[in-house]
């Protein structure tokens, strides 16, 4: 089956996303997030049957009010998964694959995805959020920190990109 590559124009998609973000501020008083949910899931998993873990201040901060998963961002991220699935299902885009540049070995691609995930974990804890909860939410509410985080991220991405040229070879 030919892949459906009919995507929204990014400027229009941004207008719709920005409007959704505004609705989020108007309803919940906060914008959308993503990384915080994974911090909470990790804290909850680490806590399962392991009371010693509460000696970690960071984890106990999530647990002390009850279940770490009873949280707006966690529920919102569950919705994010559902919404992504619905969109892809209607567009006929649900397909197992490992996306990468031409001729790049799958094992190496997955290795970098894993290491990148670990690095991004530390990045989001230091930065108190990711592209969603820090950059989009913060910049939309005129926070100086969001721009500092975003410009540092883009600058570093441009700087390190040549090291990963092979992984993304031929990608348009």
């Amino acid at each position: 089956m030919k892949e459906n590559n009919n995507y929204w124009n990014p400027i229009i998609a941004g207008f719709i996303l920005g409007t959704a973000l505004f609705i989020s501020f108007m309803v919940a008083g906060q914008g959308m997030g993503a990384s915080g949910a994974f911090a909470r899931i990790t804290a909850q998993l680490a806590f399962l049957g392991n009371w010693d873990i509460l000696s970690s201040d960071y984890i106990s901060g999530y647990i002390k009010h009850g279940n770490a998963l009873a949280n707006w961002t966690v529920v919102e991220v569950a919705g994010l998964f559902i919404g992504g699935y619905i969109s892809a299902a209607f567009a006929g885009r649900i397909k197992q694959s490992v996306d990468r540049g031409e001729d790049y070995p799958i094992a190496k691609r997955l290795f970098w995805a894993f290491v990148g995930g670990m690095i991004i974990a530390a990045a989001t804890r230091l930065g108190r959020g990711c592209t969603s909860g820090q950059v989009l939410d913060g910049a939309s509410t005129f926070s100086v920190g969001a721009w500092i985080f975003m410009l540092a991220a883009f600058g570093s991405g441009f700087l390190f990109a040549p090291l990963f040229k092979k992984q993304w070879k031929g990608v348009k």
Partner: protein
Amino acid sequence: METLNTMYPLFTTGGISSNENLLYGLLIGIMFGFILERAGFGRSTHIAPVFFFRNLRVSQMMVSSILTASTWIIIAVYNGWLDFNQVFIPTTYLWPYMLGGALFGLGMIMSGWCPGTAIVGVATGKLDAGVFLIGLMVGMYFYFDYFDKIVDFANSGNMGKYTIHEALGVSIYTSFLITVAIGVGLMIFMRTMKSIRDKKGEDI
């Protein structure tokens, strides 16, 4: 016509209950995921090229959504619908944000994902997104474990809720105009870099 009172955010002004807020959170998340997938962010190969100035959809969508959301916010503040003081704004930690941002950019070009897009990637069958999210959780665990050794740095440069208008001592409307200027400047920068790359005819 009755006098308009500030009634938003609905949750913090008591307009909806905590459970209703969670239900709306689920719906907002569904919208978010749907939009990200429609825009093509369920694939790492649509994200990584921005760092080579090959495909600007990431930066275009980010700037477009920031400018759209802040325009709506400024309209709502001007009309007295939204109490801006009740909107959550992340605290600015200068040094951790610089290092965190730099690590974030490195992690993004390395993995092709950020946390939000990777969720969409997993929902649409991308194995690299799943591996990324496992790495993300392992990384979180290490961070929690080492947190007491880096806590001083992680909380350094605390500037509180630091908005552009507070920093410059201007009104929120000036903050909005500066946000538009930064966004437009970023778009122009990205377009210029892309046209330089295009002229050289380099592929990744």
